[in-house]
């Protein structure tokens, strides 16, 4: 049995470049066990690149990180065993039913056959998907797909859940349902979560602490309430952002980012 570290995620000068583009420029963050930690910033700030490095999908150019006590480069397989991941893109298979998607996850994450049925039933109930469990996922609404993806990612009770833009493209009601489930999950299991968002309201509603990212670097870090209080009474996270990076959180990103974003929204729609 491995001792559960208090710092679930710890990065050291984490850096990733693509040719001459510096996506993440030496990031240092530390995420405590049980907190919901948000990476907030506009498209192109380096949030998704950071999450890809922490989930071992992308090797860092330099620097490093430990996740759940394991090195993301040297112990990548151990890292993968202890994390859950919901990509920004659509990751549930539309040609399978909800239950089949969950069964695949359970088998890949080595949930024992004895526990599988009960865990899947529990996850379906928790995500309010019991009735649709045996329908094809391509008939689901965007909100249901996101909840199914969350169910898949939490099935093996990971030490940390990575969520890349968890409510992107969802309508306000579906978005609220996802927030409720995430907060309930935190309450129920003390699962650590790291999420990226460019949505100030989402950051405010969910995150215990926030790292504001801008052009690959950490602009500021703190609890949402503290960050706002430091600016003045009635300040918003938007004000915090403007103060720390000198401009608003307008949506930028490359052609490829925009195309992917729109594809995701269309598919979830």
């Amino acid at each position: 049995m491995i001792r559960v570290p208090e710092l679930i995620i710890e990065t050291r000068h984490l850096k990733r470049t693509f040719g001459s583009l510096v996506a993440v420029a030496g990031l240092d963050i530390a995420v405590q066990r049980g907190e919901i930690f948000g990476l907030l910033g506009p498209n192109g700030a380096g949030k998704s690149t950071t999450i890809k490095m922490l989930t071992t999908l992308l090797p860092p150019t330099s620097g490093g990180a430990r996740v759940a006590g394991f090195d993301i480069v040297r112990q990548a397989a151990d890292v993968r065993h202890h994390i859950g991941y919901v990509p920004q893109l659509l990751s549930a298979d539309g040609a399978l039913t909800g239950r089949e998607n969950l069964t695949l996850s359970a088998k890949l994450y080595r949930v024992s056959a004895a526990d599988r049925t009960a865990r899947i039933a529990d996850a379906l109930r928790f995500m309010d998907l019991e009735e649709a469990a045996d329908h094809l996922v391509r008939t689901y609404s965007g909100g249901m797909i996101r909840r199914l993806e969350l169910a898949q990612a939490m099935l093996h009770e990971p030490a940390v859940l990575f969520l890349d833009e968890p409510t992107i493209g969802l309508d306000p009601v579906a978005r609220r349902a996802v927030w409720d489930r995430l907060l309930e999950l935190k309450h129920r299991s003390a699962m650590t979560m790291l999420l990226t968002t460019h949505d100030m309201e989402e950051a405010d509603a969910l995150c215990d602490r926030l790292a504001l990212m801008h052009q690959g670097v950490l602009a500021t870090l703190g609890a949402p309430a503290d960050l706002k209080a430091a600016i003045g009474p009635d300040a918003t996270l938007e004000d915090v952002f403007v103060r720390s990076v000198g401009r608003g959180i307008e949506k930028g990103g490359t052609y490829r980012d925009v195309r992917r974003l729109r594809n995701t929204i269309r598919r979830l729609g």
Partner: protein
Amino acid sequence: MTSAGFATRSAGSAKARVAVFVAQTLAIAEMEAHKLVRDPTELISRAVQPVLWLLVFGQVFAHTRAIPTGTLSYLAFMTPGVLAQGVSFTAIFYGIAVIWERDLGIVHKLLASPAARSSLVLGKALAASIRALPQVVIIYGLAALLGVRFTLRLDALLGVAGFVLLGSATFATLSLLVACVVKTRERFMGIGQILTMPLFFASNAIYPLAMMPAWLRAVARVNPLTYLVDGLRVTMIRGSELSQFGLGVDAVVMAFLLGLLVLVTARLYPGLAR
């Protein structure tokens, strides 16, 4: 709840690791099988081409007697070739599926799971093999109606199934490899088209190696389809004197190639998520 994950460390004996690998590989293949059962249109459309080869090309060439096939009828000679062609052409476009999965986000999720990369690749390859089996049934049925006499012993039939699975998995893995390199649908389709015809015509599928000019025979000897055809010809058609290389060589060549392709593709697979 959170700490439960830490108790299940990944290590364990070699035997346990193999069991995990097999379970994860089968899990991937099983889900692909579910999809096929639900939407069998692809299985049916894939059967059209072999039927045309047997009915049109096979009938015409059998009548002209242009291709010397010894004591064997031309139809009996080409039937294993048509099966091998059907199997390999179905498999060689299989990689497009992972390009779709990459455009969605399914590949990203699978690659962030603890499943070995090689089990993700081999699982997909096995799924491609399942697609090939209905072609066997259709080709056996049609060729039998046309008067081809098959070896119907159990060991021979198992041998045919084995070669079909092996050949299909091999060409599907080659296809996944191409998908990992080119990453877009357009480039992938272009390469698929470039690969299929030379594979087919530079093989012993529809004419014997002995008929070929020396340079083409040299190409055919390094063409995996030649070994698949050879293996199928021995197991499907009466009289094992048909083999050029021997059944053992055919099987070893295909198995070695599959292993090599799985290893290389597993190394390239993570590139799909970057």
